């Protein structure tokens, strides 16, 4: 199948103005226009998005499972990295 399969594209959708683009899934397509159309039909046909990005999956650089320890574990045990020791002044509205 692999030689008859079109390239894979990652799809990102923006739900509303000012919101971040979020990964929605992926589609197969022969080219960028096809990828955009397929993304629209698969991930935005029920009004889920106001903008779309499609990116060739090969262009995504991902961390490897083996990176998990060195990359992410040190973040957990250094509480001083988290800015949670400050009292919020009364005048500041929490929102």
């Amino acid at each position, binding site marked *: 199948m692999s030689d008859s399969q*079109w390239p894979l594209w990652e799809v990102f959708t923006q739900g509303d103005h000012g919101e971040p683009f979020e990964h929605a899934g992926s*589609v*197969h*397509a*022969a080219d960028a*226009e*096809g990828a955009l*159309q*397929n993304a*629209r*039909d*698969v991930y935005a*046909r029920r009004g889920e998005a106001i903008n779309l990005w499609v990116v060739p999956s090969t262009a995504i650089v991902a961390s490897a499972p083996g990176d998990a320890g060195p990359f992410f574990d040190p973040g957990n045990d250094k509480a001083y990295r988290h800015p949670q020791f400050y009292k919020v002044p009364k005048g500041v509205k929490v929102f």
Partner: protein
Amino acid sequence: MAPASPAAPRTPAVENPLFEYVVRLGDDRLVLGHRVAEWCGHGPILEEDIALSNIALDLTGQAAALLALAGSIEGKGRDEDALAYFRDEPQFRNALLCELPKGDFGVTIVRQFFFDAYSLLLWDALAACTHEKLAALAAKSRKEDTYHLRHSAEWVRKLGDGTPESHERAQRAVDALWRFTGELFERDAIDDAVVSHGIVVDHAALAAKWRELVEGVLREATLTVPAEPGPRATGGRRGRHTEHLGHMLAEMQIVARSHPGATW
């Protein structure tokens, strides 16, 4: 010689030309929507399967709105379901192009492209007409059809300018369907009668724009525009259909007719 040269076929006088006119618009989309829906579960790839089903649903939605409008114009208590499911073949007013079998993917795409180009140009004209309800429907539908045309035109380019097999199949579809396109631009007594309701469409201008648009895409797709249109296929607007419509309607209407009034 343009396949699209408007002529004035003789149409028997009808009681309510506006009803007849809106039914024609609705039937084109109902019948084509059903044909496109036949791809559901059979598309060449998952993404295109979904794309075709989306287009089918858009067309069916347009048909429902148009037939509901037609029913209210008629004023005899028929709603969109009554018109869709409880009329027989001779009462259908769709162009023959819409009822032809879905064929291979090339036929489906080329037919869709021919229709999308026509439909979008027609909605442009109708959105400017003074019949308020129809103008509103036109404005809404033209957004959908703008996408349909983008989709089908892109596929025509890909198939025509693709592999030898996709090129040959696309060209075969163009050659086979070409003589069905003239009917889309025919002008008859119904078109003349609805002018008094604010519905004014310049068929000759529509045909010329369609040709320019279609020929441009066919050239980009390295496809050949047929030199001779051949005998124009016509009759759908007056209820004279190909042998294919009856079979399609049997399938489309059986559930509604077997369980009249059923809800779910």
